[in-house]
């Protein structure tokens, strides 16, 4: 079914039809992804969805008035009604008690309903040229014509050019609008420009993926890219790359299987990238975070074992005595398997030594155990001195903090407390 040869033939773009579809969807995908980054960062993802639904009545009215379905005629209509929807949402938010989500849902469904009413009205008038209108509902990438490519190209260039020009301003607007206002940027006008560009992206994108899936072209690339980087520049490029690859693959699937729609396949591939990023991205992805969590839990486990042995040595006044696993167990209720494993790993790291009498701390292990006890006791002292907590209330907190405090913090604590010798429970604070 899916052969490499066919993929290569497809990618060679030797058939003009393939060229139109691939260029068209890729241009639309990139433009939407670029502008979608800002929609995403401004947490207005679903406003894009509302705009996408809301362009339908504009398209139908433009057709009714002009009687033609070329993009040049329909786009202004779509643009106007998308715009009107955006203004309506803002107006409802400002003038009623309805919450933004209700305002978005209301505008989305009422505009779309009006569009359906007009569309069915047009259909029953039996005008032959209307048949293409419903392509806007689901998108019809296969029907992209060379003339449409010009429209996509020009709007795409316009969008990307304006974003490049105002990149710094848009970034500031997305992350800290108050600051943008304070440094004297024309926030209102910039917001207007950004919204207008969003409407423009939606209006051109609808042709390829349809009204419902347009939201995905805006949101999904940005959301996927966010998992890989903290830098907005990289995010824009990565999002655009995801969108471009998904567009090519989606077009390829529908080229292979002619009854398969292009738009939905683009979205499925794009969602696949997003789900993959959620799970596998280093740092932010689900697996990476699970791994971090497990590693941290293990570090705490090892430190607790080390501390238990240190405490026992401290109470005996002899750090050289061997200690059996059962005795460690007596200090603190460890799970037997985890205890055995951490004794083994601590030994391998050179923190513990083992002889027939049991485990004992190595030189380095002793230093590490003392460090843990020191942090624990410093923190207890800090809580009693600075927060005036009773000495019997501070142990649990210190139990957590001893795994977290860095050497720098430790130094600050010691300095703040005046290099103390005794903790609130009158134990030594080891040096």
């Amino acid at each position, binding site marked *: 079914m899916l052969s490499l040869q066919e993929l290569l033939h497809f990618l060679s773009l030797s058939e003009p039809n393939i060229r139109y579809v691939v260029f068209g969807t890729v241009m639309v995908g990139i433009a939407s992804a670029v502008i979608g980054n800002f929609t*995403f960062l401004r*947490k*207005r*993802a*679903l406003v894009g*969805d509302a705009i996408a*639904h809301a362009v339908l009545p504009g398209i139908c009215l433009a057709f009714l008035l002009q009687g033609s379905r070329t993009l040049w005629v329909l786009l202004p209509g779509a643009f106007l009604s998308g715009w009107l929807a955006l203004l309506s949402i803002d107006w*409802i938010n400002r*003038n*009623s*008690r*309805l*919450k933004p*989500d*209700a305002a*978005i*849902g*209301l505008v*989305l*469904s*009422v505009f*779309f*309903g*009006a*569009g*359906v*009413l*007009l*569309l*069915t*009205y047009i259909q*029953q008038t039996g005008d032959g040229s209307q048949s293409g209108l*419903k392509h806007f*509902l*689901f998108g019809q990438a296969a029907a992209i014509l060379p003339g449409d490519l010009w429209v996509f190209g020009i709007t795409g260039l316009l969008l990307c050019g304006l974003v490049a020009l105002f990149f710094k301003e848009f970034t500031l607007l997305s992350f800290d609008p108050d600051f943008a206002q304070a440094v004297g940027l024309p926030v209102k006008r910039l917001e207007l420009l950004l919204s207008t560009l969003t409407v423009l992206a939606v209006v051109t994108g609808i042709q390829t993926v349809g009204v*419902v*899936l347009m*939201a*995905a072209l*805006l*949101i*999904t690339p*940005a*959301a996927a890219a*966010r998992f890989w980087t903290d830098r907005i520049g990289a995010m824009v490029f990565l999002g655009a790359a995801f969108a471009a690859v998904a567009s090519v693959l989606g077009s390829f699937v529908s080229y292979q299987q002619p*009854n*398969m*729609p292009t*738009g*939905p*396949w683009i*979205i*499925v591939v794009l*969602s696949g990238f*997003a789900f993959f990023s*959620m*799970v596998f991205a280093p740092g*932010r*992805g*689900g697996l990476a975070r699970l791994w971090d969590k497990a590693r941290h839990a293990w570090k705490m486990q090892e430190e607790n074992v080390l501390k238990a042995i240190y405490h026992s040595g401290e109470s005996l006044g002899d750090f050289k005595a061997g200690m059996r696993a059962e005795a460690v167990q007596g200090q603190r209720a460890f799970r037997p398997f985890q205890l055995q494993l951490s004794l083994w790993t601590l030994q391998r790291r050179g923190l513990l030594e083992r002889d027939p009498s049991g485990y004992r701390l190595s030189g380095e292990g002793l230093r590490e155990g003392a460090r843990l006890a020191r942090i624990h006791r410093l923190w207890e002292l800090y809580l009693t001195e600075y927060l005036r907590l009773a000495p019997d209330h501070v142990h649990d907190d210190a139990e957590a903090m001893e795994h977290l405090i860095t050497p720098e913090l430790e130094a600050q604590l010691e300095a703040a407390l005046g290099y103390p010798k005794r903790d609130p429970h009158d134990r030594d604070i080891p040096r």
Partner: protein
Amino acid sequence: MNTATLDAFWIILTGALVAVSGGLLGCYLLLRRLSLIGDAISHAVLPGIAVAFLITGSLSSVPALLGAAVVGLLCTWAIETVQHRAGVQGDAAMGIVFTFLFAVGVILVSSLAGNADLDQECVLYGELAFVIFDQTVWGMPVSTAILLANLLLVIVVLGVGYRGFFLTTFDPAFARALGFSTAAWHYVLMSLVSLTTVVSFESVGAILVVAFLVAPAAIAHLLTDRLPIMLLLAALVGISASAGGYFLAAALNANIAGAMTVVLGVEFVAVMAVKKVGVRMRPRVPVASGT
């Protein structure tokens, strides 16, 4: 009654059943700020509906309906997972999940091409007028009967659970303290939304259901602060939109569900206008100055 009047009656009744179920549930969605979850579910049930069609050949059987509704629940679960486990912000989580499910649904529907009962357009807006061509059961069209059963279910569940829904909606912390499980009530509500979306699918399509989940509740919310009155108003708004929409659609010879939505929009604008004018005309009550 002659046939034309009778047909009109069935169509308006069917539309009203959708509108009232949606309106009642919509009140709770609106108050819980979940209006857009309704939107997401209504898109996301599409793959469920397509698979139900694929297996049973129609949506008029109980297992098919329930199966499709489960996908709606799955959607809310998926949104929460993406949001909380993967750490994607809420609006984007919703957008990613429902567009993905909808895309899968459209692909399934396309692969069913040739199946006369399910085409792409009916996904979007359904056709209420076809109700009258249904087989009849208990003297009414099958779709109408299913929607009636759904409405009864909605009313019974909302009625029996009134206290639970009320508390978990307005004061979740207090409700938890009293021992109500907010998650359980949330999922009961989502199940009803999901089921209502699925059963309304053939009459109004997957998208226009959103209008009935959001608009009546929004209009009612503008008019009152009291939940029982809000529920009643939402139902009345829905019924009037159904009747108004029928006549608008008949005049234009266009889609009835779309026309109902337009009527809802007009009602909303009218209420907003009256409120605005009312606010302006209300005599200013002098504020008692502090002593």
